[in-house]
C-alpha cells in the first residue's frame, strides 16, 4: 500500500501546504493555552506530529525526513524527558521536594506557572518526536 503519493495529486499538495501552518499554529495554541482551555502538552504534541505526518503522506517521507531528521528526532525524544525530569531535579536542588514547582519562584503561584509551563513543554517535545518517529518506522519499513 502506498502511504503517500508524489507528483500526482497537485490539489492535495496545495491544500496541504495551506493547512500545515494552521495545524502548527493550532498546536502552539493548544500547547500554551492548556492552562485556560482544554489541551496541553500531550494533545499539542499529537497535533504537531500530525502536521509532519500529513506532510510525509503527501510529499513523501524523504522530504519530511530532510526537515526532521531521524537523529534529530532521537535527540528530541530524550530531550523532552530530560526537560520534564530536569524541572524536577532543579526543584530538588533548590531544596524542595521532587517536582515542587513552588521552588521555582519567590511566589509559589508564579512558581507553579513556570513549572507547569516547563513540564508541558517537555511533554510536547517528547510526544511530537515519538509520534513522528513511530510514523517513520511504520511507514518506511519495507518487506
Amino acid at each position, binding site marked *: 500500500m502506498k502511504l503517500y503519493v508524489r507528483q500526482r495529486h497537485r490539489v492535495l499538495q496545495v491544500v496541504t501546504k495551506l493547512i500545515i501552518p494552521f495545524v502548527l499554529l493550532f498546536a502552539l495554541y493548544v500547547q500554551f493555552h492548556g492552562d485556560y482551555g482544554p489541551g496541553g502538552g500531550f494533545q499539542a504534541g499529537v497535533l504537531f506530529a500530525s502536521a509532519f505526518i500529513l506532510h510525509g503522506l503527501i510529499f513523501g517521507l524523504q522530504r519530511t525526513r530532510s526537515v526532521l531528521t531521524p537523529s534529530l528526532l532521537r535527540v528530541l525524544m530524550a530531550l523532552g524527558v*530530560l526537560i520534564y*525530569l530536569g524541572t524536577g531535579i532543579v526543584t530538588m536542588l533548590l531544596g524542595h521536594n521532587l517536582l*515542587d514547582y513552588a521552588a521555582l519562584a519567590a511566589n509559589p503561584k508564579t512558581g507553579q506557572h513556570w513549572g507547569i509551563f516547563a513540564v508541558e513543554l517537555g511533554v510536547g517535545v517528547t510526544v511530537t518526536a515519538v509520534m513522528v518517529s513511530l510514523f517513520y518506522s511504520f511507514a518506511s519499513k519495507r518487506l
Partner: protein
Amino acid sequence: MDIAQQLPALVIVLPMLAAPLCVLIRHSALCWALSVFTSLLTFLSAFGLFNQVRADGVIRYAIGGWAAPTGIEYYVDMANASMLLLVSFISLIVLLYAYESVKKSVVKAKHYLFYAAWMLCLTGLLGITITGDAFNVFVFLEISSLSMYMLIAFGSNRRALTASFRYLIMGSIGASFILIGIGFLYAATGTLNMADMAGRIPDAEAQRAVLVAFSFLTIGLMIKSAVFPLHGWLANAYQYAPVAVTAFLAGTATKVSLYVLLRFFFSIFGTEYSFGYMLLNVVLLPAAIVSFILLSLVAIFQSDLKRMLAYSSVAQVGYIVAAFCLATEQGLTAGIVHIFNHGIIKTALFMSVGCMLFRLGHTHRNSLDNLISTMPFTVVAFIISGLGLIGVPLTVGFVSKFTLIGAAMEKGWWLVGALVLLSSLFAVIYIGRVIEIMLFRKVRVNEPAPVGMKEAPLSMLVPMYALIGVSIWFGVFGTTTLSVAREAALVLLGGYQ
C-alpha cells in the same frame, strides 16, 4: 539539597535520568558504564533509605510538595525498602555481568537502546515498589512492562518475538484488570492513596465494588507474578530473552508483582478482609500447591536449561504464594525471605547458564557432558546455587524452606509442609541430573572434543561469584534476612499508621 532527605526521590530519578542520557550518548561501552554507575548510585540510595527506615520507621515523601492524599507520595517502610534494595542490587550485579554477553548477542548499533531499556525497566520496577499511590502503580507497571517486552525481543532466536508478543497480550490483560480494579476501588473510596484507601475500605467493605476490585486486582497481579494457571507467558519469555535479561527479570520482575500483591492483600484490604471474608486461600492455596508440585515435575522433563529454570521459577512463586496464604506472621516472613533468597539464587543460576551459553552457544542438558573439565568455575557456580535452589542446609534455600515448613506446621497445615518437601525432591531430580551430566558423564567417543572451549571471561565470573558469595553469606547467617523479613511482615500485617 539535603541528600538524606531526597533519597526516596533519588532512587527513581537516577535510573530515569540515565535512560534518555543513553539515547543521547549512543556509545556502546559508555552507555554500559553509565548504566552500571547509575545502578550503583541507585543501590547506594536504596541502601541509605533502608538504613533510614530501619532507624526511624516509615518515611513519607510528598512529591510536588502536595501532601497525600491530594498529591502522590512515596511511602517507604521495611517491606518496600528491602525490595528496593533487592531490585537495585540485582540490577547492579547483572549489569556488570551483562557487558560481554550483550556484546556477543545484540547488534552493536542497538546497545544503547538495550541499556536505555534496562534503565527504564529498573525505573519501572523501583517505581512500583516505592510508590504510595495505587494509580501510580499502574503507570510504573507499564513502564516496566513495555521495556521488558523490548528487552525480551532482543533475544537472538526469532521465537523471542512471539514470546514477547504473547507476554504483551497477557501483560496487557493483566494491566487492564489492575486498571479496572483501581477504578472500582476509586469509586468505592474516592481516593487513590494506598494509606488513605486502607483507612476507608472498612467503611466501604460491604460494597460489591470493593469485592470486584479485589478480584480484578488479584487476577491482574497473578498474571504479572506468574501464579499457576496464569503462568503461560513466562517459560518462553525466559527461554528466548537474552540471558542477562532473563537473569535480571527472574530476580526482580515477578518478585515486585508479588510484593504489590502482598501490599494489597495485607495492608490495603487487610488480612481480615482478604482471608477471613474473601477466603482468598481457598482459591490461591490450591493454585500455589499445583504450581510447586506440577511445575517442578514439568521442569524435570525439560532438556533446555533455561526453560527448566523458568518452570522452576513458577514453582518457586508457588512456594511464596503458599506462604502468603498462611496469613500468619511466620508465614509472611517465610514468603518474604523466600522472595529475597529465590531472587538471589535464581539470578545466580541464570548467570551460570549464561556463561555456558556464552561459550557453548546453547544450553541443552544432554550435551553438557563433563563440562567441569572445561568450565570448572561456571559448573561450581551452578552447583552451589543449584543446591541453594533445592534447599540443602547452610544455603539460603534451606533458610526459606525451613521457615516455610515451620510456618505451615505452626498453623497445622501438615499436608502443605509435606508437599513442599515432595516438590523439593523433584528439585533434587532436575538439578541433580544436570549436575551429574556436568560432573560425571564422559564425552562420547565418536564426538570430537570441542575446540577452543575455555572458561567464561572474568568479567562474567566475578559478578556471578559476588552474588554467590552473598547467597552463601545469607545462607550461613540466615538470621539477618529473617529478622528483616520479620520486620517487613509485621509492617505489612500492621497496615498503615
